[in-house]
């Protein structure tokens, strides 16, 4: 659970996560937007199905993998939000063909 201590004063951005709309600020990474929206886990692992969430926020841990606009296993912490972005949390193995 995260809250805004300071608004960026930048444009509001809306994106969808598994079909549900969330709000973010321009300049947020997708990972930051997910955490700000109270989303606890962004994926489950392909090995055991355990829930995982962003851990390092700097592109090193690869925990924040989500599907963005149809392309899977993207690092949410390295991707800036864009209005209209479609995020899908990943369950286990990423489907081939996406």
């Amino acid at each position: 659970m995260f809250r805004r201590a300071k608004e960026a004063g930048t444009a509001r951005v809306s994106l969808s996560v598994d079909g549900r709309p969330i709000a973010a600020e321009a300049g947020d990474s997708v990972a930051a937007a997910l955490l700000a929206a109270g989303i606890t886990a962004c994926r489950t692992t392909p090995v055991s199905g355990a829930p995982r969430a962003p851990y390092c926020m700097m592109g090193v841990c690869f925990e924040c993998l989500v599907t963005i606009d149809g392309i899977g296993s993207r690092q949410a912490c390295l991707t800036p939000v864009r209005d209209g972005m479609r995020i899908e949390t990943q369950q286990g193995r990423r489907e081939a063909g996406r």
Partner: protein
Amino acid sequence: MSAAIRESCDLAVIGAGPAGLAAAATAARLGLDTVLFDEQPAPGGQIYRAITETPLSERGVLGEDYWHGGALLEPFFQSGAQYVPGATVWSVTREGEIGVSVAGAARLLQARHVILATGALERPFPIPGWTLPGVMTCGAAQILLKSSGLVAAGQVVLAGSGPLLWLIAAQYLRAGGEIAALLDTTPSANWSAALPHLPGFLASSYLAKGMKLVREVKRRVKVIAHVASLAAIGGDRVEEVAYRVFGGSETRMPVDTLLLHQGVVPNINLSTAIGCAHGWDPAQLCFTPVSDEWGMSSLDGIAIAGDGAGISGALAAEHRGRLAGLDAARRLGRIGDDARDRAATPHRTALARAERGRRFLDRLYRPAEAFRLPAPETLACRCEEVTAQQVQEAVALGVQGPNQLKSFLRCGMGPCQGRLCGLTVTELIAKARGVPPGAVGYYRLRPPVKPITLAELASLPRGEAAEKAVVRG
């Protein structure tokens, strides 16, 4: 800003933290055709993350050490170097060929000289439950604060050891965040062990700054010292943190966000994949690339500057960056030896000053073995979910090192390519074999040092070299 990637340049610098910005600026001002690649959308690396865009405009929150980073930007942008943000470098060869992707398109670029400035990453902190949602690094919390003005709500606990722990705690409090407790895992024995290095520390700026930070935090946060064990407990996310003070019994606290930190270590994935020689640093308990006083690695034409060459902090990084930039200019014939050495003198003096006191900090905040060698059931490798016990069992079967381990277990074969398990696995094997970590070695890494999509790879421009490289079989 999107920049077309050229096919060649004099100098490629990888990483836009203090070392990279300073190196690129120095070299470009001396006339080298310089390109700076960085994965983030804005410059600053991690220590000066979001310095051009942070919502935390009130300078007192992040502190003057952070805002100092701004001084690196103007010289860089004025230098004539090309800046390519959002660029993931996935390969560098010994001959200076860079493989890089920007916006889903992969390209190859030939550089005559390369400076790696990829900095540091947090030392792994493998405690039980460290993979639960809600457990993050302190650095992650700091990035969320700097980039998006976000603080963790509810019960927030910080745990670990090191100067950054106190800095992050202080920044959090100033930003209006609340911290329920700070669990300090610094072993009490470290204080006496660090004493021999005290004079250097007393003469440095760390003493005053450090004491101020600690006082500021202790005024408002419950600090529990000498924590000897930690565990994150929960089902789908972390719900409690369990800890034991040295000699005490287990205590549990409810927690919504658990932030871990026990120092930073060089990010050696790129330097290892290129084939640079590395050595085990017994003082800093990590692998460090071999480099000379200009940052030149064991491979001619590949230099390393900043924390990626050895942890020395942000100020030392920028001075090392300038030295590497000067040496690049000398090696490519822009300036002679004398001019390089003369220009280097003030940077060497500044570097020595910046490094004062660090040996004390290194020894004081040397993480306890209990937090480097996880308990048997704890995950050593997060990506592939391999426990410490599984690693130990493989050693009992005859595995000598992390590369042979890959045939039994998938440690190091996940997407992070060992960034979060490499040191743990090396130390586990070393301990099980009864040899020093340097004798065990590290994962043998190859490019791509970050995953590259099949689409990106297929989009690489064809070359006639590919035709000749084929073997019909």
